[in-house]
């Protein structure tokens, strides 16, 4: 018994000692990303970055991503209190990045000045959406509309066409719409704000309630929306980032994308977290994505260049060309009129954010079962 017990005691204690010594040290050949940008894009971006690091520094870079919705990622970073387990935060709305910068949780972006200056300050009319932080704490990486996705076969069967927002309220679409709740997805939240800005608070909620009456599923994650539409479980998805929709096309599914008027366009901001375990890799990553090589990764995946310098173009049949067809001919957001009514000053307020979520929860989520019966 004696020896046996000692062995057990040692084994149990050994675990803790071992873990304490061996795994607390950070090494610069690692890089961790926390991002709401889904695997469809962050995976190739990380792979290309690792290849770039290998070529330039001859270092085998181990990369990993924590896929989290924007609000979750934001909360996680606040929770880390300046001791982050990730290096770079990528994606979502600029306003959240401003909040993080205010709390002193971000490092300033360190990229060449020419690169910084190439990026326009804002996009969209009448209200310009910022594409970079004037104080330099975050920078936009790509342009990405939150639009509508549909399954053409199902729509034809239902005898419905989708061109803009109001087509979603067609009674024939009852139970056919998929959307994510605005409190769990920033793309959904931003789209709700667009509707509220277009129609005003009262009429806007009226519209959104009608949308809920047509909604068959409120998914817990925004990425589920294009998934269920591409499978044909539901016919139309709302507030879907263009690249998520395009990823379904690349995956072999038959879906189409609509960029409705005034839909929110995000620059997918990126920032280096203060106290990042691997700061050098972090800053190198930001710079890499803004080079032509980095921008090409986006252009082949249903996203648009952040500067007017590049256009989505490729050989016939290439993914880049497929992406252009998929969005009915858009090659750059600097070629087309971009309407924007979303006001970051209004929608960015924390109080407003909670107000919208609370209203949604009370008047839509809790009453959804009754709404769909109408």
């Amino acid at each position, binding site marked *: 018994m004696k020896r*046996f017990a000692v062995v057990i005691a040692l084994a149990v204690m050994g675990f803790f000692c071992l*873990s304490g010594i061996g795994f607390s040290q950070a090494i610069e050949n690692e890089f961790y990303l926390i991002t709401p940008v889904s695997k469809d894009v962050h995976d190739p971006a990380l792979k290309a970055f690792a290849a770039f690091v290998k070529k330039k520094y001859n270092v085998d870079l181990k990369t990993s991503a924590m896929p989290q919705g924007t*609000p979750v990622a934001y909360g996680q970073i606040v929770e880390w209190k300046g001791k982050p387990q990730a290096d770079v935060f990528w994606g979502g709305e600029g306003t959240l990045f401003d909040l993080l910068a205010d709390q002193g949780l971000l490092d300033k972006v360190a990229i060449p000045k020419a690169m910084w200056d190439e990026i326009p300050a804002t996009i969209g009319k009448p209200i310009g959406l910022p594409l970079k932080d004037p104080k330099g704490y975050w920078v936009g990486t790509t342009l990405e509309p939150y639009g509508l996705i549909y399954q053409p076969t199902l729509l034809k069967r239902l005898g419905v066409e989708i061109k803009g927002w109001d087509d979603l309220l067609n009674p024939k679409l009852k139970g056919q719409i998929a959307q994510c709740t605005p409190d769990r997805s920033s793309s959904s939240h931003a789209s709700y704000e667009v509707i509220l800005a277009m129609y005003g608070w009262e009429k806007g909620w009226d519209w959104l309630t009608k949308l809920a009456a047509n909604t068959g599923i409120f998914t817990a994650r925004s990425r589920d929306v294009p998934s269920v539409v*591409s499978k044909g479980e539901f016919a139309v998805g709302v507030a879907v980032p263009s690249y998520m929709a395009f990823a379904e096309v690349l995956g072999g599914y038959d879906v189409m994308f609509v960029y409705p008027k005034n839909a929110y366009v995000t620059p997918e901001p990126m920032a280096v977290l203060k106290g990042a375990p691997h700061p050098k890799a972090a800053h190198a990553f930001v710079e890499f994505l803004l080079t032509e090589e980095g921008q090409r990764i986006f252009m082949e995946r249903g996203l648009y260049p952040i500067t007017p310098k590049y256009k989505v173009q490729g050989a016939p049949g290439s993914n880049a060309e497929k992406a252009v067809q998929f969005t009915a001919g858009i090659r750059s957001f600097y070629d087309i009129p971009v309407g924007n009514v979303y006001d970051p000053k209004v929608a960015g307020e924390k109080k407003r954010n909670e107000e919208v979520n609370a209203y949604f929860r009370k008047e839509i989520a*809790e009453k959804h079962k009754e709404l769909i019966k109408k």
Partner: protein
Amino acid sequence: MNEGTAVALPKPSVWSEMKIGGILGYAAIWAFFIIFLIYPLIRLFYDSFTTEAGIFTLANFQDFFTDAFYLKSLMNSMLLGVGTVITTSIIGIAIAFLLLRYDFPGRGLFSYLTIIPMIMPPLVGVMGFVFIMGRAGTVNIILQDYFGLQHPINFMYGLHGVLLVETLHLFPLMTLSIVDAMGKISPSLDEAAESVGSRGLRKFRDITFPLTTPGYVSGALLVFIWTFADFATPLVVGISDLLASQAYLNIVQFVDRRLFKMGIVISAIMVILAILFLIIAKKYVSIKDYSSLSYSVIERKKLSPLAQAGAIAFLAFILILAFIPYLGLALDSFGRGWALTPFPVKYTLQYFERVAIETPKFIINSLLYSGISVVICIAVGVPIAWVMSRTRLPGRGVLDSLTTLILALPGTGIGIAYMRAFRDPLPFMTTALIGMWIVIPVVLAVRRLPYTVRGTFASLLIVHRSFEEAAESVGATKARTFKDVTLPLIWKGVLVGSLYSFILALQEASATLLLVIPGHEMMTVGIFNFYIGGSVNEAAALGFILIILGAACLFIINRMAGSKMGGVFG
């Protein structure tokens, strides 16, 4: 808390008999329980009864019990749990009776196949169902394309869908518990009853029912808790007004501190409820019931040809339903761009390539962490079983209760408790435990410990004390006796228990999902990440591999343990 010591009646000699090493070992076991089970739970309760500033308050609970939405979630969770217990009871008991009492062709095969549905990692089960029975699933598409159905039948989206998935996943737990309990009824009791004229219902009421109740109650408790704690299945079918879903959703968002706090409170409520259920069921699920453990050979009745056909048809029907998710997963993991056709049109191996060859870390981490957790399970669990069956050490009753408690604890609750308890570095350590990968195998070990303990305990009871006494009488030390006499006799039981711990560790995805560390994802976490990342096919492929691994382990258990395999669940 003193119940254990009271039972053990500590004589002064208990301690003096023990060597220093033994005391240290016993202390180590207790340290393990205190650090990795008791402390996190206390921390969870502490957090739920205090404000952010650390002042005692009941306001959190008041918020919960005055919020109509949370009350509805609580109600729904209870209804779902009870509903699942009812449906699994009907199916599980029917199958147990058929397999145990009657003989018909294919009985052996069926007894293996009917436990397979237990191997169903969270999320992929419901995914598989949706592929076949969803609005655009195979069944609805066939009905629409060939039978003129206008609107798809809604099999999945709603509480009934969750009930369907849980029932077909969990009925084997019920079957195993009943098989185990009925296996312990000596046929002589049956004969005795019949000889005095007690037959049919009367016999069932007087003999079968009371003797199988303990097994049934513990099976029912497991099914209830499992359903109660599952947050992944409801989310896939668009249901979020359940306690586990609310706990999970509130915790994984950090923006709204109030919601975050509610997540902690909901977890605490789930743990409290689990403890309550356990206390109610305690007199049935205590490990001590195994004192009557003796498996007897049951004489099986031969069924008439018609009844045979009926039995086979019933089992086949249940199995076809239960195997739907496997079919859906297999199709989706090999099929490319599958939408609105009964079966995929194009097939590919690319998804397997991506999850197994390009990023082998999921499989490697899963095997590694589950492996380590089983080592911990054995290192902690075998001594516990030994202490409980061979010593009268004070506190062993409490150990028994704690081990049983683990079975009843919802994984979400443990995960959140760990998040709160280990967010600051422990003494003598520089990094917080939740930032280190070792926390994953540790939490897996804690959650799956009961299976190892029970497997070992059951086999220790069969080894008669006199064997060991004989060895000791000729001068062997306790350790030597254990090594030369006890171990060779119980290793099968230990192995079976450990394999169960292993299978279930492989499939764990509630605590680990909350505690995952970047770069150290396991298969279940990979499934979840692929799924929420929109790569449904990859998730299916990873799930498929996990199921194959599980089925292989189960096959080994089946070969080694035969009918005894229910023991670990009892």
